[in-house]
């Protein structure tokens, strides 16, 4: 469903409005405007701005209390919406003025009015479709963040870890196509060339927001290369996309964890250590006591690097938790109807025999599996998921 249909606007209203019939002109045009003006989002804009002017009347200029500060902030936040609304009223007024001229006796005048009317209507509908939603949907707090992609093999044994390797390469490729820098932070290989689990870092503005819909269970259906009798197996890989930022600013961590809550453990005994030993023992493990989250890192050659990486993963997991909690709270407050994404839920199926990839949230299938694995079609899916999210947010706003 497109945003348009969610706003209760039938697209054909617009084309009808542009194709003016002599007799029915007036009422059709009037109808088009009423539709726009009654659109739920326009009503929401009205409500918000009413609230705003109420706040304005309550705020005193000279005696600035803490509540006033909060009010002023709110007022400021809605300033752009106020400007947009003023523009809307202007255009609507022009439209109203043009409408009677549509039935003018002078054909030249009529033609002019029709043109004018069509362009004004278009302007209004653009505001309904893009300007208002953009101003109403809260900006993403993670818009600037990069992503960590954690992959874990699930059911299906070695077939699952082979598939994990392929999914991993799929993300590396798609990251490249977005112009992001992706690298493998850690991986645990299996005997047969598969990967048990891995963590990718995808560095780039917006990487987290775009990739976050990948979290969930990815299922593959195919005949394993090792299967002699050609039977189709089903195996799974679970994906978890976490927010991360390039360099954590000092002090920023304290919101997420206290250093004293993190135990840093080194693996293995090292005998006398120091000058006596030159074998690389760089593995570290972090344990965050309050949550029980543990992160092990051993892929880097220096302990310091492993520690940095491990802290990056810990920070990302804690940040993810925090976002989840905030979302749950918002939902509880609003008794929200929009279902939250369950990470144990199957999000996508890759069916090799049918050369098909189905995204279960979109209810879509791409009939070219390779183009998903190479990244092109994955981008289409990601974009559709992002749009779906936009629509859900809008819906959430409209049911407030």
């Amino acid at each position: 469903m497109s945003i348009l249909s969610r706003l209760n606007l039938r697209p054909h209203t617009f084309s009808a409005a542009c194709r003016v019939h002599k007799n029915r002109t007036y009422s059709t045009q009037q109808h088009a405007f009423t539709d726009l003006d009654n659109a739920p989002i326009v009503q929401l804009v009205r409500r918000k701005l009413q609230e705003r002017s109420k706040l304005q009347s309550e705020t005193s200029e000279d005696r600035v209390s803490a509540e006033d500060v909060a009010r002023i902030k709110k007022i400021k936040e809605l300033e752009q919406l106020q400007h947009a609304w003023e523009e809307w009223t202007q255009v609507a007024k022009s439209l109203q003025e043009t409408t009677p001229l549509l039935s003018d006796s002078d054909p030249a005048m009529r033609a002019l009015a029709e043109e004018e009317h069509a362009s004004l209507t278009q302007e209004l509908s653009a505001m309904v479709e893009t300007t208002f939603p953009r101003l109403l949907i809260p900006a993403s707090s993670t818009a600037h963040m990069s992503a960590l992609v954690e992959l874990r093999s699930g059911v299906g044994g070695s077939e699952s870890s082979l598939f994990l390797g392929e999914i991993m390469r799929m993300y590396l490729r798609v990251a490249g196509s977005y112009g992001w820098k992706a690298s493998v932070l850690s991986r645990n290989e299996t005997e047969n060339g598969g990967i048990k689990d891995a963590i990718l870092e995808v560095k780039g503005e917006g990487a987290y927001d775009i990739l976050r819909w990948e979290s969930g269970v990815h299922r593959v259906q195919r005949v394993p290369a090792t299967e002699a009798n050609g039977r189709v197996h089903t195996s799974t890989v679970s994906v978890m996309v976490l927010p991360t930022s390039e360099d954590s600013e000092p002090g920023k961590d304290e919101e997420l964890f206290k250093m004293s809550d993190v135990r840093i453990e080194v693996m293995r005994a090292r005998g006398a250590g120091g000058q006596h030993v030159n074998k690389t023992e760089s593995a570290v493990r972090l344990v965050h006591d309050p949550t029980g989250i543990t992160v092990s890192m051993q892929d880097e050659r220096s302990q310091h690097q492993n520690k940095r990486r491990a802290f990056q993963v810990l920070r990302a997991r804690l940040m993810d938790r925090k976002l989840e909690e905030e979302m749950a709270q918002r939902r509880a407050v609003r008794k929200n109807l929009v279902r939250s994404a369950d990470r144990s839920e199957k999000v996508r199926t890759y069916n090799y025999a049918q050369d098909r990839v189905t995204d279960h949230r979109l209810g879509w299938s791409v009939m070219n599996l390779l183009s998903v694995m190479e990244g092109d079609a994955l981008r289409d899916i990601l974009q559709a998921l992002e749009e779906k999210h936009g629509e859900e947010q809008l819906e959430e706003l409209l049911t407030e």
Partner: protein
Amino acid sequence: MRRVASRLLHVLERVLDAESAVRELRWMQEVLAGPKPSPSTSTTLEDMVARRVRGEPLQYILGTQPFGPLTLLTRAPVLIPRTETEDWAHRLAEMRQPTRHKPLSVLDLCTGSGCIPLLLCSLWAPGSTHACGVDISEDAIKLSADNARANDIAIPEKGPLPPHEFRLRDRNTFTPLLGNIRDSAFVVASGLHPPFDIITSNPPYIPKREYDELPVSVKDFEDHRALLGDPDDTVPDGRGLTFYHTIAELLNSNKLLKCDGIVALEVGAGQARDVASIMENQGGMRHTRIWNDPWGKERVVIATN
């Protein structure tokens, strides 16, 4: 390719545990995929694995070792920077925040690869740190200079930078100096400008008895001068503390350290208490503290006034 790699993995597993073998093989592959760190770096995986099986340290085979944010070159027989050193040098860096207007001078005795002063130069603000490193080994002094260059740390052309010139520099500097710290004339001979704000050292500390038991990868590949704590036969059953006595003497007789300066010394297993009292009694330092390494071993003596 995969077949070759898995055969070599089994070869490595003869000398390493399975997990280390997987990781070391991957690091070798990564080095082969990138630009050659030095002319002596092997060009094939077979060759690298063969060298490893013969007991050569991984770091010499790969040609580099990360040390905090630095990538240091490693060349036999110069001592390979250790994880324990990486850990305490970071901790030391957190004790001070020099700026270009409040710069610090650093003297690293027995500098080897230059890892300690170079790390301080890279962690502390540009123009805030001016370090000198002294070593008796020409290989070490050459390597430490190469490491400064590789990590974009300036080497002053005319030797140790006099303190009145600190403010003219907007970059941190490192001066590598060939010298024997046991010859007390070295301070003047190398043109140093004491007193220093920070004196660091990871001097050779392994007692002869333990030296004889060292693993092949240490004893047969790293310089014995970098390891043996009692270099003369005059201390037949020494505890490896000769260099700490030397450093204590230097502190006492040369006014090497500023009143509010810090001395940081790495020590071997079981030496921390002895070194602390050498610093107090012989070096005239008022306070000493002991830091543990990540494995919980007493590893560093910090001395202040």
